[in-house]
């Protein structure tokens, strides 16, 4: 809200420098965001919070200033004398719940023209365009009293009658349209409150008047409306119509049902003074009376909640000037709340009033005495701790930089990755009002975001990238239920073949698999196995699903060449490896508890073997074949070479590995090893169908 400072000073009866007054307003809860010099005056830009509609007016802000400076408030003149003759004008409120009070005055014989320069200047300082004397007066009073008024041209109000009713009540079952002051024709929802004359709608109550009843250059007689409309009804209609006005903004926050009469009289006063004309007695339908809130506040509680220790007198004097009626009693004081403070409903609200007038800065800072409990926190802990935190820390240490993306995607992202219709990732949660079509739903996977990040980085010439994101993905459970939120950590590794000082010779798949294995063994996850992956966006021959026991906890693999082709990446054959962990699944995996095993006392003996076998043979099968052999003397194997090429037949590969033998109770003899080793080699060659190379 923009307020000229001189106007405030007149009403508040203060003479403080503008900067000081602005500071004190800010510290009392009316934040002054800017002080703009304007001629010989200043305009304050006051940020009025939604609970204080009374401060959407010069008088409201001046009241705060007068309470702060302990001055008395000067209301502008609003006493008028009117003809008392018969009015020949009727108002019917057909919906008391939505219109609690409807008042108006008739002024005849006016002449439309420009408003005086001083009024135009103030309106402009407040950001309102001057139109003509009558409209300007209603706007001036709106700014001054914060109460919206509306002037109708009397001769356009048919039947000397005004009705206040919802569109649905006035025209049951029919579609209702009205052309508003801004020349737009609007379809009105059935629950929207209308102002109607004897025949037609002439305005949308509390939001905007109708074009056809507008005051124009030929207007001679006017009817000024000053009413109270139920805030929630105005808000609902304003949103449904997509129409927000100075009037609707105030009505939906709550206007002053008592002040509306004064505002009306002030407007009549200004019309008489500035425009002239004959003023007629007032109409005031007030079917739903204001019920004043009365609150008992215990002195002890004020001090207890705020952590201060002030006297009863000091407490109640904080409230002086804010319009409360206060009666002090022994242990408590009673507060009668004025109509313009609809935000004050219970003792805590009064405590806030005491606190802000006492000054937040005057309240001492004292650290709490805490009760020690079990500070459990949710099992989920945080993204920064627990399993997700450990995976995240490992990725950082192994060279992956953390990305954070918006949690949105579109279904086109799933199409790009060939996600089939029956995959749970297709159960998207759609947003009804997305900002962009690319952000139409919540992510069911993180990968599309990382691919976008990759393209962004390639566009400026990056040749390698290792990024990951740790975030929730959202799997829909139907329109009326909350989705399942699952924590996932997805990493993307991109590398082009480039000249480098220290070349990495390993296949990138194994580089990333090594990281995955290290992460899992660091967590102590039990029963981990890698099985050829079925993920549609991965290279079928170069990808693996990761299982912990029977549960799939993630996957790794090269991006499918089919998907790669869709990305429009120019570089030839870079390697793109994706790794993802499903954190909730990983949490339910088994974990090994560390348990000490005695260190070996006797030496080990190593023997190397090379076997030529089918190229489809999975090296990891060697482990089960060897454990099937059933000798306690075999400690383990380690593969040191996989070879295909000359000397090896088509469709075959040579697998070379070293076997370590050790006994726990003695040093093995050469003879023992020779016998055992040749039996093992025979077993291997039988079970693998391979041939031992000599």
């Amino acid at each position: 809200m923009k307020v000229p400072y001189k106007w405030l000073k007149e009403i508040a009866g203060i003479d403080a420098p503008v900067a000081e007054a602005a500071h004190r307003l800010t510290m009392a809860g009316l934040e002054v965001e800017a002080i703009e010099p304007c001629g010989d005056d200043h305009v304050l830009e006051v940020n009025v919070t939604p609970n204080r509609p009374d401060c959407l007016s010069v008088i409201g802000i001046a009241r705060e200033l007068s309470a702060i400076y302990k001055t008395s408030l000067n209301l502008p003149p609003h006493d008028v004398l009117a003809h008392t003759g018969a009015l020949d004008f009727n108002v019917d409120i057909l919906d008391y719940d939505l219109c609690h009070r409807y008042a108006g005055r008739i002024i005849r014989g006016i002449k439309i023209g420009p408003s005086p320069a001083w009024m135009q200047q103030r309106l402009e300082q407040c950001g309102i365009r001057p139109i003509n004397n009558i409209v300007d007066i209603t706007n001036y009073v709106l700014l001054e009293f914060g109460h919206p008024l509306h002037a109708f041209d009397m001769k356009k109000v048919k039947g000397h009658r005004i009705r206040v009713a919802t569109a649905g009540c006035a025209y049951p079952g029919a579609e209702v349209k009205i052309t508003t002051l801004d020349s737009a024709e609007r379809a009105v929802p059935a629950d929207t409150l209308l102002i109607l004359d004897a025949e037609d709608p002439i305005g949308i109550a509390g939001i905007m008047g109708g074009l056809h009843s507008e005051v124009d250059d030929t207007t001679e007689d006017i009817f000024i409306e000053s009413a109270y409309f139920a805030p929630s009804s105005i808000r609902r209609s304003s949103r449904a119509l997509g129409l927000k006005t100075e009037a609707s903004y105030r009505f939906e926050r709550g206007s002053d049902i008592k002040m509306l009469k004064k505002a009306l009289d002030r407007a009549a006063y200004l019309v008489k003074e500035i425009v002239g004309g004959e003023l007629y007695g007032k109409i005031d339908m007030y079917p739903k009376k204001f019920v004043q809130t009365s609150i008992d506040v215990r002195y002890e509680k004020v001090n207890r909640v705020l952590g201060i220790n002030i006297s009863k007198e000091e407490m109640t004097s904080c409230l002086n000037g804010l319009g409360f009626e206060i009666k002090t009693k022994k242990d408590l004081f009673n507060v009668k709340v004025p109509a313009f403070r609809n935000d004050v409903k219970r003792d805590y609200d009064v405590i806030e009033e005491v606190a802000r007038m006492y000054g937040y800065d005057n309240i001492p800072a004292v650290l709490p005495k805490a009760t020690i409990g079990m500070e459990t926190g949710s099992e989920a802990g945080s993204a920064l701790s627990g399993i997700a935190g450990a995976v995240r820390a490992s990725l950082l240490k192994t060279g992956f930089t953390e990305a954070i993306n918006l949690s949105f995607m579109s279904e086109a992202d799933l199409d790009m990755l060939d996600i089939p219709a029956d995959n749970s990732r297709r159960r998207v949660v759609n947003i009804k009002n997305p900002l962009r079509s690319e952000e139409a739903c919540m992510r069911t996977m993180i990968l599309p975001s990382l691919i976008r990040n990759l393209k962004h980085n390639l566009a400026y010439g990056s040749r390698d990238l290792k990024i990951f994101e740790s975030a929730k993905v959202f799997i829909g459970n139907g329109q009326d239920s909350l989705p399942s939120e699952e924590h996932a950590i997805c990493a993307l590794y991109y590398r082009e073949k480039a000249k480098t000082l220290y070349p990495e010779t390993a296949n990138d798949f194994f580089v990333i698999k090594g990281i995955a294995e290290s992460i899992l063994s660091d967590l102590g996850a039990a029963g981990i196995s890698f099985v050829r992956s079925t993920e549609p966006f991965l290279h079928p021959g170069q990808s693996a699903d990761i299982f912990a026991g029977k549960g799939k906890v993630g996957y790794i693999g090269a991006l499918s060449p089919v998907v790669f082709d869709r990305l429009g990446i120019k570089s030839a054959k870079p390697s793109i490896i994706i790794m993802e962990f499903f954190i909730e699944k990983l949490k339910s995996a088994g974990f090994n508890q560390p348990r000490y095993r005695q260190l070996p006392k006797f030496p080990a003996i190593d023997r190397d073997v090379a076997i030529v076998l089918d190229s489809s043979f999975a090296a990891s099968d060697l482990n089960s074949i060897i454990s099937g052999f059933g000798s306690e003397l075999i400690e383990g194997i380690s593969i040191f070479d996989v070879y295909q090429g000359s000397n090896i037949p088509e469709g075959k590969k040579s697998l070379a590995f070293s076997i370590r033998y050790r006994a726990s109770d003695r040093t093995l003899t050469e003879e023992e090893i020779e016998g055992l080793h040749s039996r093992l080699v025979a077993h291997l060659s039988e079970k693998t169908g391979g041939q031992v190379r000599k």
Partner: protein
Amino acid sequence: MSADLSNTFHDELQSLKDLSGLVQLRVKYLGKKGILTAELKSLSSLPAEERKAAGKRVNDLKNLIESELDAKEASLKAEALKAQLLSESIDISLPGKSAGFGRQHPLSRVMSEIADIFVKMGFSIEEGPEVELDKYNFELLNIPKDHPARDMQDTFYVSDEIVLRTHTSPVQVRVMQRQKPPLRFIAPGRVYRCDADITHSPMFHQIEGLMIDRDITFSNLKAVLRTFVHQMFGADTAVRFRPSFFPFTEPSAEIDIGCFLCKQAGCRVCKSTGWLEVLGAGMVNPAVLENVGYDPDEYSGFAFGMGIERIAMLKYAIDDIRLFFDNDARFLRQF
């Protein structure tokens, strides 16, 4: 004679170049057929009275030659080792093979910094859903439907009753429904509002905090948040509390810190006020306590919240919020 021999030996020792020469020299003097061995043998031909003295001279000479040969051998070996190590030297000015640590996203960095401070003060960490029921995001927080306070937060809707949470405050309600006081936790996470420009992102991060117990006061709120500000921004940072409005707190406060960019002299970032708004807070509204079945006469507490992006932008002098979500490696590697 032995003086000549000694001189000859020293000349030869002087001209030695390498270890193989030394071996030869040792054989020449001390070997079975060496000069000194011969000398010793020839002693027997001497008259008895001379033999003893001559014997001592030859032995002294032998000992001298032996020790000098040993010394020479040690020094030749040291030189050889030195030469060999020198030949193995590498260009230590070449760059190392990077262990290539990744970088934490600046928002995570700031978030864990903040979380650490509260964890040290005994706050635990809680989480809640990001796609949330209207009831938790608004109604139980004292923001009914058709209430103007909803304008403070432009909401993404999934359905009439389901929204993307506009703040981390619904976690308060969920935890209070689940647990009885005392409570002391923070809830960091992603929140959503349909708004996008250089200072607003449709998704951003908040940290919410809540402390509930008997006799928790506004003065406690001030002390906890002042402690936080001093830990986070430095012990000499100015802090001020001013009244504000949040539907779920009463009294409510906004917390400003002295602008550290201009030392409170006034600059563009603080809009010439010398103050930067960093936190919202307040005493938990008794209506909220009642909504979760707590007795507001028995328990009181405070809640606070802050935007991580705003703090990170101030801390690192970042002027466009979208940089956080482009994930440009050139940006991410700066933190």
